[in-house]
């Protein structure tokens, strides 16, 4: 049981990385704060059910991601359009030197990725988790995580620099 974990210590340890993940997903400070706070609120209510204390960080990220998806589902849905089909209609992210890039431009580019790629890419760069943990957080198989990451990273590089990360042709659609 993770009952013995001190709430304040837990918040101190994880609130920053959780907020980074939340902000990567929402690009909105208030929403990211709400998501982070809600995650700890859920922990306070249900965290005692977690038996393995080593899984606390993964549990928190999983919870945050679920809350994010839950909130998204409540929003008005827009028609889903494949990035390939809509690329010409997207606001142009100018191909710039990565050194000149600021966070808002980076997250704007991330937001142009299909939703299924955003969370794995953010978790990849935040570098807090192994691929196995990312798979647990996103609740998909590790193979799916890797395929989504490969495609997502390639797209992100393409959007930011005008060229793909590998220089290889576009990857097939995620399984």
């Amino acid at each position, binding site marked *: 049981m993770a009952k013995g974990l001190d*709430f*304040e210590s837990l*918040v*101190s340890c994880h*609130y*920053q990385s959780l*907020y*980074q993940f939340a*902000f*990567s997903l929402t690009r909105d*400070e208030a929403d990211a*704060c709400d998501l*982070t*706070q809600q995650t*700890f*609120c859920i922990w*306070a209510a249900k965290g005692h059910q977690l038996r393995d204390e080593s899984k606390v960080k993964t549990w928190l990220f999983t919870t945050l991601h679920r809350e994010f998806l839950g909130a998204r589902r409540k929003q008005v849905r827009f028609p889903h359009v494949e990035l390939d089909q809509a690329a010409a209609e997207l606001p142009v992210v100018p191909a710039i030197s*990565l*050194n000149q*890039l*600021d*966070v808002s431009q*980076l997250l704007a580019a991330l937001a142009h990725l299909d939703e299924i790629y955003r969370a794995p890419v*953010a978790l*990849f*760069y*935040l*570098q807090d988790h*192994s*691929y196995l943990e990312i798979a647990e957080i996103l609740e998909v198989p590790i193979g799916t995580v*890797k395929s989504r*990451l*490969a495609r997502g*990273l*390639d797209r*992100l*590089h393409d959007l*930011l*620099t005008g060229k793909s*990360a*590998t*220089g*290889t042709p576009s990857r097939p659609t995620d399984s």
Partner: protein
Amino acid sequence: MNRDDAKNILLLYRPDTVDVVDPQVTEALSLVKQDAELAAWLRELGARQEILRAKFRQIQAPAGLKEQIISEQAAREKIIVWRRVAALTAVAAAVVVLLTLAVFRFQSAGNDNTLALYQNRMVGAALRVYTMDLATDNPVQIREYLKQNHAPADYVLPAPLEKVATTGCAITSWQGAKVSMICFRTGKPLPPGEQSDLWLFVIDRDLVKNAPSAGPPQLAKVNQLITATWTQGDKLYLLGTEGDEQTIRKLL
């Protein structure tokens, strides 16, 4: 593994993490050592990834978020504690109410056994249309019948009452115990269908709360009858008839 395979694997490679122990990564990295072009690609990719990683890391939580989370949780816990206290208070109040009701009911049940209720019940029995178990003007037969049926039979009548003609008797009950009802006719004209105009009820004294102790009969108007109640020996007597105190005093 060729160069493209290696690129696909190394695209997901994060130096200085557990990724380095992945056998596929290890194999791709060994290929990098032999392929200068691949090595250049990896350096460029690494530099780009590092920049992007740094950008993600630049995201900073707003000042005070941590304190806000902690303080709001503390406030929430206080509310939860208050809710629990309120819930417990409500439960305690409900228990008190139930206990009060139970005590009240218990006392009421006890109060069912009072003299006033007994008098009311017996007078009501006399005024209702009733059927005598035994119709006779023979007092001995009445006493015998009551005795055989385990109702109080060893009663003692006041001398004036001894002279009043009996019409019969019935056995009624009070709190599960038998009550002897002896019916008399004083001689006054009776309404059609009526056989009696004076009734005596006898019960063991211990069965009625607040029964008077030995002493002169207590007179009281109960319903439409004037009644006299007294104790003699271990029996409680209740005599009732229509009229006033003078009417009943003549029979005692």
